[in-house]
């Protein structure tokens, strides 16, 4: 038997945008008839390719994530694989039974009770009444909806529907599970439980295809990831590599900034010579230094725009001091996506090579410890100043020069996330907790 679960070759899907002019009267009805029995619409400006020539293979037991912007074709692809939409070209071969969860409430009918919907849903997947009966206790228990299972679905909240839908899908014993954004609904504890179940499922040779806008979920649960854009495969590879690339592309992250070209160091200095009469502390008026470049580095020293919360973040700045004994130190300002200052990183390494500057180039690296910042996007403002107890003299500053994205820790490793999906706040330190039992 083949060792792949899904193989997709040149899969394409064209949607009609439906801008065709409709005629009135009997002519319009006849036009409709010719559309119904005649040829399919041809490629023109009123059509759009949601998928274009997509090919990939999924091995059995693989957990494949799909990332991409809205309209990149992720949901279309999952729809085709779950056979609710037809491809326009290409083919897909699927080995094994497929269960798909496309958005909330897959195939539930409002007037039926939870239990009746379980039967109905199971029969869509080819389970007999008897087979369903055997699974009902497990499904109901997993969904935690014992009290409501004989209540019509129309009284359910969207979270309850999602729970029931996931519980059914997870117990249908599929070989291949297609999940589209399903884990983004329901409460956090249940989402965690679902992920655990997905984890258990994949241990038994099950294949999972997973569409999510949450890079953290993809990173945690997928071994491999495909980045789709405008119906094309942009990148296909290990989940962390692809999500990194996608995040830095979609958030326009900037891990490196350079202000001065290497071969032109003299230009500003000559300009400064003019102002030499106006002196501060025996030196000309600021600036006394300028920024050359700034970079976000990972723990291992390579340039990166996405960092895991379990890793240190290294902010590097290269600058040039114009005068001897200038007393120049760098600073960073870390700003959250909501434009809130997370903290100011002031220079504290007194007594180092910087304490008595010469007119040279320097490189400083500030190390932000792991488990300090929360997940999400951060901006970095970098600057140079002369510290003093009075007025701080700024020599150069670049607002939001750098940006990076902090992503969640891999599933199972220590993080300050706890059982939650997201914790608010600019920082999220991993604290030590001490507990003891008190007896009166």
């Amino acid at each position, binding site marked *: 038997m083949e060792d792949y679960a899904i193989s997709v070759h040149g899969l394409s899907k064209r949607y009609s945008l439906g801008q065709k002019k409709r005629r009135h009267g009997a002519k319009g009805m006849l036009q409709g008839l010719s559309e119904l029995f005649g040829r399919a619409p041809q490629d023109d400006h009123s059509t759009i390719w949601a998928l274009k020539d997509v090919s990939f293979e999924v091995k059995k037991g693989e957990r494949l994530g799909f990332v991409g912007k809205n309209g990149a074709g992720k949901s279309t692809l999952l729809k085709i694989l779950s*056979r609710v939409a*037809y491809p326009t070209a290409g083919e897909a071969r699927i080995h094994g039974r497929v269960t798909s969860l496309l958005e909330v409430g897959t195939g539930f009918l409002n007037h039926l009770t939870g239990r009746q919907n379980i039967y109905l849903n199971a*029969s869509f997947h080819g389970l007999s009444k008897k087979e369903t009966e055997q699974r009902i206790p497990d499904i109901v228990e997993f969904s935690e909806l014992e009290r409501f299972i004989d209540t019509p679905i129309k009284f359910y909240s969207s979270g309850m529907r999602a729970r029931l839908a996931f519980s059914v899908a997870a117990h249908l014993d599929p070989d291949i599970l297609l999940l589209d954004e399903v884990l983004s609904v329901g409460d956090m504890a249940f989402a965690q439980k679902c992920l655990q179940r997905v984890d258990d499922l994949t241990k038994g040779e099950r294949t999972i295809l997973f569409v999510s806008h949450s890079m953290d979920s993809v990173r945690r649960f997928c071994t491999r990831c495909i980045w789709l854009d405008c119906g094309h495969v942009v990148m296909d590879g290990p989940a962390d590599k692809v999500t990194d690339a996608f995040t830095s592309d979609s958030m326009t992250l900037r891990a490196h900034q350079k202000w001065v070209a290497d071969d032109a160091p003299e230009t500003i200095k000559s300009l400064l010579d003019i102002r030499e009469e106006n002196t501060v502390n025996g030196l000309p008026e600021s600036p006394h230094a300028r920024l050359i470049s700034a970079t976000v580095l990972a723990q291992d020293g390579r340039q990166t725009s996405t960092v895991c919360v379990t890793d240190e973040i290294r902010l590097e700045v290269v600058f040039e001091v114009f005068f001897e004994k200038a007393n120049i130190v760098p600073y960073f300002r870390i700003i959250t996506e909501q434009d809130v200052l997370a903290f100011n990183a002031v220079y504290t390494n007194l007594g180092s090579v910087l304490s008595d500057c010469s007119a040279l180039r320097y490189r400083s690296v500030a190390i932000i410890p792991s488990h300090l910042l929360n997940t999400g996007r951060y901006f970095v403002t970098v600057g140079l100043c002369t510290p003093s107890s009075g007025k701080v003299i700024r020599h150069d500053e670049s607002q939001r020069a750098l940006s990076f994205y902090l992503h969640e820790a891999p599933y199972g490793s220590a993080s300050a996330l706890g059982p939650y999906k997201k914790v608010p706040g600019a920082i999220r330190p991993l604290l030590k907790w001490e507990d003891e039992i008190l007896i009166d």
Partner: protein
Amino acid sequence: MPSFHQNPYEVVIKPPTSSQFVDVKELIRFRGLLRSMSSRQVRAEFGDLHLGIFWVLARPLLMTVIFVFFRRVSNANIGASVPYAAYLYSGLILWFFFTESVSRAAASISTDGALMQKVYFPRLLSPLSSILAQLSGLAIASIPLFLIMGYYGLVPGWNLMLLPVVLLQTMLLAFGTGCLFAALATLSRDWERLLSLLLYIGLFVSPVIFAPDMLPKAAQSIHMLNPMSGALLGFRATLFSDYVLPANEWFYSLLFSGVLGLVGVYAFQRAERTFMDRI
């Protein structure tokens, strides 16, 4: 369904082609679903209503009472060879079975559309199940028929053996018509109006309240072009022993049903493909 569940199988997803017709094997594999979809509709029909059975019986019974009264007072010659009440009531229940089946099947894409976007199943199960569900109404409506037949001392002959055949033919006709109009309904709502007009007028031009013998010869042959004529007359012939089976008319009706069934299924599949893309 063992074949489906125990063996891993391969599904090939390809662009639909016109040559690709009904996958009968797949329909058989999904027969459990057909059953549960039909029983779901039966439950919806009778479960939600406190007077479910009353509503099924009220229409044909009241119409029978009214038309029998009219015939009495007008002394009109209907041309039926069996007591009018039995003739009329049997016609009405088959006619209403047909029209309900057609209109439910024609609405199947719009009622099950939300489901079709979420989960795969052979789409033809949707109109098919709505027609099967209507059999329950027919079964209930035939109880008064037996009482009427008993009252007049009417007994079925050997032709009763053909009753399932006639019913199947009527269902095939309803299926074809339903599928065709389900497909057309995705294009424009005009077709829904046309269908309801046809079904309404059909009651009066089909041999439901009158018998063909009432009509002049020329009108009789035109009226036999209506595919429901053969079905209605065939239905009576299987119920009443002294009612002659109109073989030619019925075979014409069967042929018509077969052709319409193919056209309907073709149109339905075409419409369903384009319908899914419009979401």
